[in-house]
C-alpha cells in the first residue's frame, strides 16, 4: 500500500471530520451553558439548510438568503429558549432532554410544513473538484470544497473558543452552566445568557446546514448527521469546543481509514459503525472525553 494513497484517505477523512465538528459544536454550546443535551440540534441544521434553499428558490440571491436565514435561526433559537426551556427551569436534566426530543420533531415538521419535503440541491459556488496544483505536485487529490468548508469551520471554532475563554459573556455562559444560584448572586442574568446561547447555536446550525447541504443535498437525512456528532462528542468531551474539533478529526480520519483498510476484509460498510465502536471503547477508558471537564468526586 503506498503512502500517497494513505495520505489521500487521511486528508479526506480529516477534512470531512471538520464538518462533523461543526455539527458537534452546536451541541457543545448548549450543553456548556445550560447542561441540556439538545437533541434538536440536527433538526436545526436541517431547518437552516431548508430555509436557505427555500428563500433562494423564491428568486432571492444567496447573498441575501443566507443573512435572512440567519435572522430566522436566531429568532428560532430565542423562541426555543423562551417558550420551551424557560418554563422548565430547575427541572431535572432528563426532563429537559425529553423536551428537546419533542422539539426535534417539531422543528423537522415545521421545516417541511413551510418548505415541503422535496430534496433540494444547494449550490454555494464552490466546486467539489480536486485542487489541480496540489494534484500536480504531490499526486494527492484534495477536494476544493472540503478545504474551504474546513477553513470556515476552523475559523468559527477558533472564534468561539476565544469568545468562551476570554470574554465576560463567555465566562458568564460557563458560570451559568456550573451553578445557577451562584451565577444569579454575582448578577449574571440567566435568561439573557440562555437566549444568547440558543441564538449562537442557531447560527452554528446554519453554517453546518449550508456546508452539509451543499455537499449532500438538502434533504431530511441531514437530521441524521446529528447522530454522527455523538461519537465526536464522546471523544472530545461534551463541554469542550477544542474537543469538538479534535473529536471530529479523529472520527473523520479513522472512519475513512477503517473503511479503506478494514472494509475489504469484512465486506465493507465499516464507515457506518466504526465511529460508534471507537466511542464505546473510549467511554470505557475516559468517560469525560479528551478535553471534557474532569469528573471530580469527593468521597
Amino acid at each position, binding site marked *: 500500500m503506498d503512502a500517497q494513497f494513505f495520505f489521500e484517505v487521511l486528508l479526506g477523512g480529516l477534512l470531512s471530520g471538520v464538518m462533523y465538528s461543526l455539527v458537534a459544536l452546536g451541541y457543545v454550546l448548549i450543553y456548556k451553558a445550560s447542561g441540556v443535551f439538545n437533541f434538536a440540534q440536527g433538526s436545526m441544521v436541517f431547518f437552516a439548510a431548508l430555509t436557505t434553499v427555500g428563500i433562494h428558490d423564491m428568486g432571492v440571491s444567496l447573498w441575501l438568503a443566507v443573512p435572512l436565514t440567519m435572522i430566522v435561526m436566531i429568532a428560532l433559537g430565542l423562541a426555543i429558549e423562551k417558550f420551551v426551556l424557560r418554563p422548565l427551569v430547575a427541572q431535572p436534566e432528563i426532563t429537559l432532554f425529553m423536551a428537546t426530543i419533542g422539539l426535534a420533531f417539531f422543528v423537522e415538521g415545521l421545516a417541511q410544513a413551510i418548505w415541503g419535503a422535496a430534496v433540494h440541491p444547494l449550490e454555494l459556488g464552490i466546486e467539489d473538484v480536486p485542487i489541480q496544483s496540489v494534484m500536480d505536485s504531490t499526486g494527492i487529490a484534495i477536494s476544493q470544497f472540503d478545504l474551504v468548508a474546513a477553513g470556515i469551520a476552523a475559523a468559527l471554532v477558533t*472564534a468561539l473558543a*476565544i*469568545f468562551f475563554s*476570554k*470574554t*465576560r*459573556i*463567555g*465566562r*458568564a455562559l*460557563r*458560570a451559568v452552566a*456550573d*451553578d445557577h*444560584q*451562584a*451565577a*444569579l*448572586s*454575582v*448578577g*449574571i*442574568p440567566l435568561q439573557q445568557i440562555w437566549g*444568547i446561547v440558543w441564538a449562537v447555536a442557531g447560527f452554528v446550525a446554519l453554517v453546518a446546514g449550508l456546508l452539509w447541504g451543499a455537499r449532500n443535498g438538502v434533504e431530511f437525512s441531514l437530521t441524521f448527521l446529528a447522530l454522527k456528532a455523538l461519537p465526536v462528542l464522546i471523544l472530545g468531551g461534551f*463541554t469542550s469546543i477544542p474537543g469538538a474539533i479534535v473529536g471530529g478529526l479523529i472520527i473523520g480520519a479513522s472512519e475513512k481509514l477503517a473503511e479503506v483498510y478494514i472494509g475489504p476484509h469484512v465486506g465493507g460498510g465499516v464507515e457506518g459503525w466504526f465511529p460508534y465502536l471507537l466511542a464505546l471503547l473510549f467511554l470505557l477508558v475516559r468517560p469525560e472525553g479528551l478535553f471534557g*471537564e*474532569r469528573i*471530580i468526586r469527593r468521597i
Partner: protein
Amino acid sequence: MRPTGEVILDLRNISLAFGGVKALTDISFDVREHEIRAIIGPNGAGKSSMLNVINGVYRPQQGEIVFRGEHRRNMNTYQAAKSGIARTFQNIALFRGMTVLDNIMTGRNLKMHCNLLQQALYWGAAQREELEHRRIVEEVIDFLEIQYIRKTPVGRLPYGLQKRVELGRALAAEPSILLLDEPMAGMNTEEKQDMCRFILDVNDEFGTTIVLIEHDMGVVMDISDRVVVLDYGRKIGDGAPADIRNSQDVIDAYLGVAH
C-alpha cells in the same frame, strides 16, 4: 469599636413561611454602614433564610426592606447584586469546573459593559476592558493570598481554600454589603484565623459592611460590632456582643444549651 455610620439596610417585620412552616416570624433589625453584623442562633433558627431574604432568593410574605433609603417589599437576586449586595453560600456555590481566576472574574460581571458584538470580535474596547478588570481581580487574589492557585480549577481545592475563593468572587464585585453564610464552617483553627483576618481587613480597608452568620462564638464575639440572635424564626436578642453574652434569653435558648 469601629466608627459605624448611618443605617444602610433596615429589615422591618419580616415574616417568611414555606407552606405551614414558619421560617421567620416578625423579625426586625438594621445594619449600619461599615459595621460587622453577626446573625447567630441554633440550627434551623432561620439564619440562612434571613440572608436569602436580604439577597432576594426568598420573598417574605410580610414586611419591608429598606435598602439605602429605598423601600421594597422584597429584593430580587439580580437587582440585589446590581445594587451592591454580594454574598457567599453555606455550601459553597462556586463554578467548580472553572479556574480560581475565572471564578473571581465572574464577580466583575456587572462592572463590565462591552456588548455582545464587541466581545464576539474580542477587539479594542473588549480586550482593554478585560485587561483592566483582570488587574482588579489580581489585586483581590493578592489580598487573599491565593496567587499560587490562580489557575487551578476550584473543584480540586480543599474546602478552606474554596471558601476563600468564594469570598474573593464576592469581593471582586466591590460590594457595599457583603453577606457571609458561615464563612468559617468546617475550617481548622489556622484557617479560621486567616478568614477572620480577611474579614476584618475587608471591613477596614474597603469600608465594606458585613453581615455574617457564624457558629463559632469565639469568632462572633471577637469580630462583630452587633449581634442578632434568632431562635425558631424569632428574634430573641440584638445588641453588642457583651450584652448578648449576658442576656438570659440568649443563654437559655442557645449558649445555655450548647455549654
